[in-house]
């Protein structure tokens, strides 16, 4: 309650007591700028070393004060998610709310403690600045409002993916990854800031921001539509893509990148297959062009090209040597990573567009390229890398020294190849992991225990395999020995007993050429019944035939093609792993590239010769 009585009339004398204030200093503030407080929200600072040009600041700005400006001198690195753009601030619009600082995925932006800027009419443009770490006037003002851990507006942690525990999966080929449920997918999709770095990094430039947004909006059919615009291997890439998008993801600079691959998988799994076919057929040309294209190899590159050309109205026939289409995705990747029914679905979509796939038809023996040249208007070879390379160390000609790709192919076909009780795998890439984990499963099914050792030249941190593969191989009881170089295959009385290795001291020489050196003091013998070489693959170009091989241009053992995938023969294109090296999504990108080139060539031919 008030301690002044309402009835009290006050006094005329009371104010006079304030006369004492004449003797006190005034509270007037000095005219020069006062130092701002530690959290002050002044002009922007931007650490250009950290900034990647993702433009998230621009999106959160509620006054549209931020524009992304292209800086030609800055490096661009789409694979790492670095764009040569930096935010410019229009201080005629900025309200200094600092949301740009709180959301900045890299933590590059901050506000300084500087707050005075004046100008005459002639330099009104000085209100539009491109902040760097030196501040608006190059004065050494400290940071004010800066990012703190507890105020970050970016969710750094990914939705956990349900996976089979090691004990649940070591004896079978069940798919390890369970997939997101709708709630998880929505939450994961909501983390995306739509910067588009993923799109730039993807070899086939998938519209990831768009399909992630569509998933977040619950429009899953729309998401599938976006996916099929650039990638007919949608189920497959939703499971085994090398996901360069996630390496480039701007959230990944401080946290875990968006699970772009798993979101694609979620959208694909959520839509019924028949509907996917309808969505994929959108935009198909209904008038046949009357032109025919032969494609050799039913892998990602060949079938992507077939998909595009079929949509453009061409009659496409795909020739596949093996009994089922899919290429390395079927014959190289184990089922626990990529179930076969998903491959079947992707291929069914492609076939539903009218692509004819002739399996068990080997070029060279069943039909020759020259015959294809006679019968078709264009020919694409997308042979893939089906042949394993050998180490050529002493003893490697023993029948129990096998190539990983051959074993994987046999495992897929369900053929018996004599699962050994113990095996040593040479190689540190994904194929080595695939065969090691496949063998361990087969061993557990047959013998109850597994004994597989992986030896690789590289240190563990430099393995070419996906870190997830290495982690899961560890969990499944596989011994991984880094920095071990193969010396010889130990054979006693005609039986293989193991692999002798040395410790690696260096892999490359001073010129950067592959030339491993070993510490011969540190030698070991890893006992095993089988040695598997998983050190790389090559293309079986023998089927081209001597005469054609002679005519074609080659570049260091690889078929020479132009930027569109056309060989030195005008009717022949080449694409996929045999041109680009092993990677599903790069093969898909290559398939699109050659399809565009073939379509252009066919259209031109038709115009000349209607």
């Amino acid at each position: 309650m008030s301690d002044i009585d309402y009835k009290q009339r006050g006094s005329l004398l009371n104010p006079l007591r304030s006369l004492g204030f004449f003797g006190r200093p005034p509270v007037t503030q000095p005219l020069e700028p006062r130092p701002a407080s530690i959290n002050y929200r002044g002009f922007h600072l931007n650490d250009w070393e950290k900034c990647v040009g993702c433009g998230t600041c621009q999106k959160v700005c509620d006054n549209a004060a931020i524009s992304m400006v292209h800086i030609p001198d800055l490096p661009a690195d789409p694979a790492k998610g670095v764009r040569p753009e930096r935010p410019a601030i229009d201080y005629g619009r900025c309200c200094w709310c600092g949301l740009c600082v709180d959301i900045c995925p890299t933590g590059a932006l901050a506000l300084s403690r500087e707050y005075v800027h004046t100008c005459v009419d002639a330099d009104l443009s000085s209100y539009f600045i491109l902040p760097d770490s030196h501040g608006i006037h190059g004065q050494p003002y400290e940071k004010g409002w800066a990012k703190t851990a507890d105020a970050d507006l970016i969710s750094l942690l990914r939705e956990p993916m349900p996976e089979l525990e090691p004990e649940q999966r070591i004896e079978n080929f069940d798919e390890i990854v369970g997939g997101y449920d709708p709630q998880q997918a929505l939450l994961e999709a909501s983390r995306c800031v739509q910067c588009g770095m993923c799109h730039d990094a993807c070899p086939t430039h998938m519209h990831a921001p768009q399909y992630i947004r569509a998933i977040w909006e619950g429009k899953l059919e729309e998401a599938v539509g976006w996916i099929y615009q650039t990638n007919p291997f949608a189920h497959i890439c939703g499971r085994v893509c090398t996901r360069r998008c996630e390496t480039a993801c701007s959230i990944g600079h401080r946290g875990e990148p968006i699970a772009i691959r798993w979101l694609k998988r979620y959208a694909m799994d959520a839509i019924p297959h028949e509907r996917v076919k309808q969505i994929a057929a959108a935009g198909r040309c209904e008038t046949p062009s009357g032109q025919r294209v032969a494609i050799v190899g039913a892998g990602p590159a060949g079938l992507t090209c077939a998909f595009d050309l079929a949509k453009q109205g061409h009659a496409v026939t795909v020739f596949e040597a093996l009994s089922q289409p899919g290429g390395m995705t079927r014959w190289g990747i184990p089922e626990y990573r990529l179930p076969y029914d998903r491959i079947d679905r992707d291929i069914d979509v492609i076939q539903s567009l009218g692509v004819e796939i002739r399996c068990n038809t080997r070029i060279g023996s069943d039909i020759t390229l020259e015959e294809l040249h006679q019968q078709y208007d264009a020919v694409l070879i997308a042979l893939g890398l089906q042949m394993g390379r050998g180490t050529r160390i002493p003893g490697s000609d023993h029948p129990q020294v096998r190539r990983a790709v051959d074993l994987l192919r046999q495992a897929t076909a369900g053929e018996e190849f004599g699962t050994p009780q113990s095996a040593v795998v040479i190689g540190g890439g994904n194929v080595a992991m695939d065969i090691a984990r496949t063998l361990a499963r087969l061993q557990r099914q047959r013998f109850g225990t597994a004994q597989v050792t992986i030896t690789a030249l590289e240190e563990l941190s430099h393995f070419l395999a996906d870190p997830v593969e290495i982690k899961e191989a560890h969990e499944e009881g596989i011994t991984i020995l880094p920095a071990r170089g193969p010396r010889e295959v130990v054979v006693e009385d005609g039986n293989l007993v193991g692999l002798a290795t040395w410790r690696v001291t260096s892999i490359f020489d001073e010129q950067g050429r592959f030339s491993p050196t070993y510490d011969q003091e540190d030698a070991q013998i890893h006992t095993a019944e089988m040695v598997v070489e998983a050190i790389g693959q090559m293309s079986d170009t023998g089927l081209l035939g001597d005469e054609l091989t002679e005519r074609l241009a080659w570049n260091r053992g690889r078929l020479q093609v132009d930027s569109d995938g056309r060989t030195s023969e005008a009717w022949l294109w080449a694409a996929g792993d045999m041109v680009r090296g092993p990677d599903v999504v790069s093969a898909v990108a290559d398939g699109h590239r050659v399809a565009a080139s073939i379509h252009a060539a066919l259209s031109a031919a038709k115009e000349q010769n209607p």
Partner: protein
Amino acid sequence: MRPENYQAVSHPPSHEYEVFFGPNHPGIEGNYALKVRLHGDEVTAARADGGYLHRGFEKLMEGRLWIQNIALVPRICVPDPVPMEVCYSLAIEALGGLEVPERAQWIRVMQLELSRIAAHLFTFGGNAATTGMYTPMFWGIADRDLILDLFEELSGGRVYHIYNIPGGVRRDLPEGYLKRVSDTLDYIESRLPDYDNLMFTNQVFVRRATGVGIMTQEQALDWGVTGPNLRATGLPFDVRRDDPYLIYDQLEFDVPVEEAGDAWARTLVRRAELKQSLRILRQVVARLPEIDGPIRAPIPNPLAWNLPLGDVYTRVESSKGELAYYVVSNGGDKPWRVHVRGPSAMHAVQVLEHLVTGARIEDVAQIMFSLDACPPEVDR
């Protein structure tokens, strides 16, 4: 030639004349105007003329993401911005089912009460100035500046703090902050006798304020008047006590009332409230160090944040009265509709017109300031 729609202006008799009181006038808060019709020096009719500060915030908010609006809301009431931020955040939290961490709730109460003191000091100054006493105005503004210093240190902004965010607050307290709050409270408390001498026990002021702009309790309730203006008519209603939000139910404070309903009663209520705010802040400063934990509930990516379909009405007690937000979500990432129930909109338009009618011209500004009208909030 006259246009077809020409209408002759009807001029009042020569002893009646119309005066534009504002929009740029030292006796008016913000850019606001009253058109008053005078008979001699007596007001016979008045028409509130707002709109000079209309920025269309409610409409603007519909086009912005939930979180972007935190930069808009403090601008609705410039002298007392914190309740705007907190009330908007409370609405979003209610819609989104966010649990605000306890520490954030205490920090919010601290800001709310600091803001209330700053707003009251500002109003005292203005109120005194309307009776010709400019010294309390300088004092009020200078002392308020010390609170703005505290806000600057906490939030980086002196007036537009933009410090509350749905889920909590944006930064934790700086090192040693509560000590500086405590020192500022000591200083303001030590200044109260000076204000009493110069203003509250100054017979000039008391006599100018007594019996001016009388509003009965019945009228106040009919007109939707809240806050100190309602309590000055004898009704002890305060949202903090009667519908507690945040952690107000854990705090001890009184709800001061006066009975007379005139300008003097309203001033006395505010003066007593300022003391209650000091009392609350002392409790907060004592308790806050014990309350650890996060300062914000986890919120989704602001760029992809849909709130569930629904509507919500949240209210807080601002220095002007009951401030409320009515927010409707259609399930999207932006508000479908935001309505701000500004307390000043209730007492600064029709009520003001009514109270100044019959008053003398020299009391018009006094009545407006005693109601603590906030034109930016009327216009929005």
